[in-house]
């Protein structure tokens, strides 16, 4: 039975990049909006 680790690493690597990228996108977008309107971004 082949180990096939390369496929596992590829799948998890892509998922990590996509999820971390989206996380970062949301954080940056929120920062940009709250910088424009500081009083409105404090609910969280």
């Amino acid at each position, binding site marked *: 039975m082949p180990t096939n680790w390369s496929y596992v690493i590829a*799948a998890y690597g892509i998922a990590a990049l996509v999820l971390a990228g989206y996380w970062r996108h949301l954080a940056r977008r929120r920062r940009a909006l709250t910088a424009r309107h500081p009083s409105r971004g404090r609910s*969280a």
Partner: protein
Amino acid sequence: MIRALGWLAVLGLLAGLAAGFGYAPREAVQGNVQRIMYLHVPSVLTAYLAFGLVLLGSVAYLATRRAGWDRLAGSAGEIGVLFTGLTLVSGSIWGKPTWGTWWTWDARLTSTAVLFLVYVGYLMLRQLIEDADTRARYAAVVGILGAVNIPIVHFSVKWWRTLHQPSTILGPEPAPIDPAIGIALLVNWIAFTLLFAYFLSRRMEIARLEEQA
């Protein structure tokens, strides 16, 4: 509160990795490549949850015309597309060593690709219309029609002869899998749901800030 949810999601994902790579055994037939299921299955279940919320938000918006429901639908739609994309990519990577091909026009794969494209269209529609009320109304109709595809995707393995295996979880019979594999799936499912809740909270907060800007 949202930040705490984010940290909880990170802890959940770390626990999921430990369960999938440390606790769960190497599967007897597929070998290590089966560990992709700890990513693939929670991704599709999270996408179902997201598109279910698009349906809920769309119906509630048409009934009440409150902007909050449209924010829920739009935010959940975006995150649903993200997780459906991950489902397709991880499934394709799993398929190559297991089935010998990256892609086949199997009913489950095809209906999932259609689901992905329908909600990409939903997001494009939201970008195309400037007037907030018109956008919310049109998007709600597409959000409701798009949800028809969710049971088609899920039951495609029962309704048609497919290469894709039948549902292991969310199926009518108890899961025919090793308990350790089942636990690893469950831990990852919870982690992905926490991550989804974090993304959704943040995305809805951003949508609210954009409306006020």
